[in-house]
């Protein structure tokens, strides 16, 4: 499932980058730069993400994935944050 999504992300990258359609952070390829449009979900994790500066308008860049593909490392507000793909899924982004 995840792999399929990754492959889609890989191949669909160029077309999606042109269209500014919002999508979630977890399907962005490594090295992609995007802007946060919102954090869905409620509860402690959504709150923590917002507190850490993942708020609408903030630029994010996907730096790398851990050896087993998960979690991923992103750069936001000048620092590095590790989060799982399940958490990254709750962050919607749009390409600049």
């Amino acid at each position: 499932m995840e792999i399929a999504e990754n492959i889609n992300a890989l191949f669909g990258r160029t077309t999606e980058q042109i269209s500014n359609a919002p999508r979630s952070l977890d399907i962005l390829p490594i090295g992609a730069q995007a802007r946060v449009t919102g954090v869905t979900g409620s509860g402690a994790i959504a709150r923590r993400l917002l507190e850490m500066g993942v708020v609408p308008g903030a630029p994010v860049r996907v730096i790398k994935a851990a050896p087993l593909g998960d979690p991923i490392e992103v750069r936001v507000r000048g620092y590095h944050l590790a989060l799982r793909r399940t958490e990254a899924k709750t962050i919607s982004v749009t390409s600049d």
Partner: protein
Amino acid sequence: MSSVLESPSLDSQNADAKHAPARPLVIALAGNPNAGKTTLFNSLTGLRQKVANYPGVTVERKEGSWTIASDLRSARLIDLPGLYSLDAASMDERIARDVLTGNIPNLPAPDAIVAVVDATNLERNLYLVTQLLEYGRPLVIALTMVDLALKRGLEIDANELAESLCVPVIPVTAQQRVGLDDLSKAVLRVIGRKAEGARWRLSDCTECELMALMSGGGDSIDRQTALRTLYADELPQDDGLREAIESARERLAHINVNWWQEPLIARYDWIEQISSRAVKKHAAPRLSTTERIDRILTHKFFGPLILIAVMLLVFQTIFSWANLPMDLVDKGFGRLGEAVGSLLAPGLFRDLLVDGIIAGVGGVLVFLPQILLLFFFIAILEDTGYMARAAFLMDRLMRGVGLHGKAFMPLLSSFACAIPGIMATRTIENPKDRLATIMIAPFMSCSARLPVYTLMIAAFFSGRKFFGFLSVGALMIMAMYLLGIMVAIGVAWVLKRTILKAPTPPLVLELPPYRVPNFLTISQMMISRAWLFLKRAGTVIMAISIILWALATFPRPPQANVVNNDAAVAQATKAGEESETDAGVKTAPGLAGQSGEQLSQSYAGRAGHLIEPVIRPLGFDWKMGVALISSFAARETLVSTLSVIYNVGKDRDSSSDSLVNAVREAKREDGSPAWTPLVALSMMVFFVLAMQCMSTVAVVRRETNSWRWPLFMIAYMTVLAYIASFITYQGGRLLGFN
């Protein structure tokens, strides 16, 4: 300014402090994790600090005294735990909020707060500052890592920042003591003055709701309280207010599903405005040093390899480097025992002092070098920032058993000692994940098991090598560590699917920039941990040593001649020291048998006999039973108990020749050897899995706030140990070993 300072008038919740005639100033130090808070705290207080816990919880409470001005009494500087926010998601955040509002017993609300802000990470650090401002206490910002920010092309205008926030901003370089005087002056200047408060605004609808809450109901509340109650997790007790809040939330949710995000987003909007004025961005290198290092250390292929190499290096070092100081401690206690023994007249008191107390405590202090070394490595890994990378690399595997990447650090610490490991689990926010981590932490082979492994290996598996350099002993120890890890994984898997069932915990973890480790921070951590261990050795273990000695000594057999018995022990010891001679080896078992008679009659011996039928299938005889009973208090006492049982007296070092020989030569009643390689292996397996540490039980009791979990822990671990040991011994016999 006089040394008598009244608490500021905004201090409404602390009536005592208001009337306190004279007390030292209380200053709180707050900041994000990795913002340089500890370094600043150390520079301000020097070594005048103490570490304790907040009442009822195990959040570390660090307090030091800060000479804020030469003519003033030293201020109490409270180091709050590292925080990202004050919204009380974790225990650390709740405690920090309680400190700021004066809700901790015997600790007045702080007269001022020093907020540590990392210049390289300004926006996220300012989030906590906006929340601190909302609490209205006098606030000073200590801006750290300004030079590092400059290297990254970020030039920060401290004056502009101070103007925007309406609080003093003092750039500091704590290690070089730059800016510390200015910081003191700024703190003294703001005391008694309420901070301006954060000037971020909410949408009109939300402001209307706040206004309504402020005026509605019986007691009017201020804007800050209204805001906090509207967005709090729990609803207020008061019926009227609760209804007002609930209906307000409903209206807000109607306009925006994510209504609760509004204040968080509004704070960042304000922060972005401030940072756009205060920060000038210059051209910066495309890749920071940290990113360069991470290209290798968290590399898909090299990352895990390096992690394994680091762990191997740590353990190898502990086993080889620790030997010299361990020998010194051991010899020191041997000398002390001899000296005390020769000073005192033979008798019960001398036996108690030499064989009970000095032998028992010395036997434990032998591990201090190893524990210090392990803490040294853990502190370095933490201080450099590598620990977070380890969590990043290990998270996928940890998640496989339903645990958090953050559980990796407490579990790794548990290889030194489960106590600090269990205490470190408080960084895990979800209580069920935390419990699961606590429950498996004691499976990590702690340093107290090492003497047991060492003794068994020295007696039965030493001297052989694989490939010319890998000793069988090292491989055996590695196997024992792996066994503990495998069982821990299995248990976590089961627990997370049964009694601790919960969705997989999320991971949101900062990967801080790599730093050169700070020697002071590391040595302080080592000292405080070592002190914890020494206190334990000085109290629990000493008490157990005395009890054990008494249990093994009383009731005394009717004809036992004290002087003769002592002479025999002395002779046995002497013989043991010359153990390589044939005569020595021959004498020892005979003497052991003679005194074994007495031990057999003692309370300890009777208990050993009592459990012998139960432990017989594991390959253990009653003497090992006695040792097992004693080691249920603390694992390492196995070695000292065996020394007592086999009459090796003053030799407590697990690798000392006399004890090793005594173990090799020990016989059962029927004359067959008591120990065989298989029995030794069975014993090691038992020690990997059994819960044999009173101090850990006590810590678990305190961490979980109930007896249920520690008792459950003792029960299931002992059962597992029994089963595994049974399989080892009986399986080994079936395979033809003996």
